[in-house]
């Protein structure tokens, strides 16, 4: 559905956001895009929706490029921005009517408006001015506008920010329903549990690079995470060559009396424990198991705070 190949993009007089960047999103996927602030997510979305033009490389939607088929692409995609991108002074119905009339290919706008209202549960609020809506209703209207053209690709940028749990649940259910009916969805969110709950495929990006991508289950299962706390400080001068080799081979991290890293099997965990005991370390605590998306995210992007 979306093909990004060898993409290079930089804002004027700024270092490149992307250099030789690649991404593939298949038709029918519910794809989660994760990354800390400043990772390049918004820029990537602007390139996929044709708001920005890459300096090098290819961005294709449904095998069509913006250079040649801009209008055709825009008819089949829809973006639901993070902001409440509609007119506060209009009612929900007036907003939907205005946006629906900007799609030349929609013949029966009234039917499309009715569908969007039904899907987002706005039936009882359609004639109220949007400025009187709660955060949850505003999010639902924002989504409803994005559904007007029955998009093949729906891009959702943080669609559940700042709303109550009920509205969030309703929106997530609607997104799942849309995906089941064949809509490809590109979903960005800071809420890891949402991505974990919704998406089959994810990509974690930072500094304009994909750090990990693929099937979510495979990514989380591929390497289980271990954390061993010892009573003594893990001083390297107490390590015998076998322990030293093991730590180096499996890229484990030592932090005071804590040893952390990814280990594929339980046998290797047992071997590590044996080596630690041989080196006269007393084990205080062991944590081992499938990692969460959050731990994977922090592991890949590091946990320090970003200024941007």
């Amino acid at each position, binding site marked *: 559905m979306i093909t990004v190949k060898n993409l290079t993009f930089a*804002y*004027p007089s700024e270092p490149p956001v992307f250099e030789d960047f690649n991404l593939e999103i298949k038709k029918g996927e519910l794809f989660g895009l994760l990354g800390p602030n400043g990772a390049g997510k918004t820029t990537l979305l602007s390139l996929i*929706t*044709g*708001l*920005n033009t890459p300096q090098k490389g290819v961005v294709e939607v449904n095998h069509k490029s913006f250079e040649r088929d*801009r*209008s055709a692409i*825009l*008819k089949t*995609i*829809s*973006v639901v*921005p*993070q*902001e*409440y*991108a*509609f*007119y*506060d*002074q*209009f009612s929900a119905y*007036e907003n939907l009517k*205005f*946006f629906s*009339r*900007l*799609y*030349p*290919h929609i013949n029966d706008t009234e039917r499309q408006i009715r569908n969007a209202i039904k899907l987002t549960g706005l039936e009882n609020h359609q004639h109220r001015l949007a400025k009187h809506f709660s955060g949850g209703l505003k999010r639902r209207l924002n989504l409803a*506008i994005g559904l007007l053209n029955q998009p093949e690709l729906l891009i959702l940028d943080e669609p559940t920010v700042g709303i109550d749990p009920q509205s969030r649940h309703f929106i997530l259910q609607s997104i799942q329903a849309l995906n089941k009916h064949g809509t490809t969805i590109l979903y960005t969110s800071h809420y890891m549990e949402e991505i974990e709950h919704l998406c089959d495929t994810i990509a974690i990006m930072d500094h304009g690079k994909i750090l990990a991508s693929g099937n979510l289950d495979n990514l989380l299962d591929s390497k289980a995470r271990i954390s061993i706390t010892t009573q003594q400080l893990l001083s390297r001068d107490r390590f015998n060559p076998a322990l030293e080799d093991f730590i180096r081979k499996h890229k484990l991290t030592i932090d005071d009396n804590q040893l952390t890293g990814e280990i594929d099997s339980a046998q290797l965990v047992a071997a590590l424990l044996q080596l630690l005991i041989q080196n006269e370390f007393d084990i205080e605590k062991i944590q081992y198991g499938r990692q969460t998306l959050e731990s994977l995210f922090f592991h890949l992007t590091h946990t320090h705070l970003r200024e941007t």
Partner: protein
Amino acid sequence: MLFTIIKKELLLVRRDIHALMVLFIMPMAFILIMSLSLQDTFQQSAADKIKIGLVFANSKEKDTPLGKSLLKLSGFQTLVYPERDVLFRRTQADNLAAAIILPEKFRASLQRSKKVAPQDRLQLYYSPTTPSHLRKLILASVIQALASYQLDKMLARMLPDPALQRQQKQKFTGGGLINQQELYGERQLQPTSVQQSVPAWLIFSIFFVVIPIATTFLTEKQHGTLQRLKTLPVPNSYFLVGKLVPYLGINLIQTALMFLVGIYLVPALGGEGLVLHSNAWLLLPMSISVSVTAISFALLVAVLVKTTEQATTIGGISNLLLAAAGGIMVPTFIMPEIMQHIARYSPMNWGLEGFLTILLRQGDLVAILPEMGKLLVLAGLLFCLAVVAYRRRLNA
């Protein structure tokens, strides 16, 4: 599609009470207030209302030819007081611009060939608030009255026939020598208060589209609506044209309304009504020129500023400056020469001069072309700058 964008813009304005106040109520109020309050100041016969106090030291002098001449001081209203102290006390209350005290021996001293003694001279006092040009006018009128009296005396001595005296006097006072005419047709060139106020405040309000245009544009930008619109299959040009067309319509409605206020409402409230002559249709191209310039300026401001507060401040201040310098708030004909020169650089002044050419100078399309041309060139320049800045901002 373009129609949908235009309709949206009109609906946004219709629901914005502040925009409606700025675009319609403010100029109507200005036209009414300024037309009514400045009515006398603008009238050429305004001098008739300027009062001059008179004291005849000898009350019998009132009935002499000199006394009568002073009582009918050309172009002024004269009030007679019994004595000097009374006059001085009443100066402020009676709003006197000047006071004349005619000493008892003044007329007698005129008969003599000797120099008139200071205490016998006519005493002319000015109020501190009387401007210098009015002082000169008062002095000239007094001199004219004295000269007329002296001339009568001379002619009476020289010519026994009263008819001949009148004939000769007419020659001396220029009656049969000077033809007074208006430069442009039969009407006076200097506008009346309503002729000045209607186009002036109309132009001012037309330029105030900067606030609703910039506000809606920035709200669209800040709310991500503009980004969302850009991801719809709509040509880019529609977004700018979609702002230009509805505001052009709004400006034309403003023009019609403000002229109707001048024609019907101002006279209904006791002011002088605005009279449109046969070339009234020229108001349309003139209004369009002003409107297109104002909208282009508004679009540029909308694209360049980052917050609605900036838009309101920059738009409001620049409008006030252009209006103050351009003869909108103070008519250019009472400005000093340097300010009149500066006024020529304000697009509001170009618009005002265009309207005044139609209203006062019976100008045709050719006559207003220079002003229209200047406005349209500026509009084109501002629109191009707005488009360039818009594209740059989108890619930033």
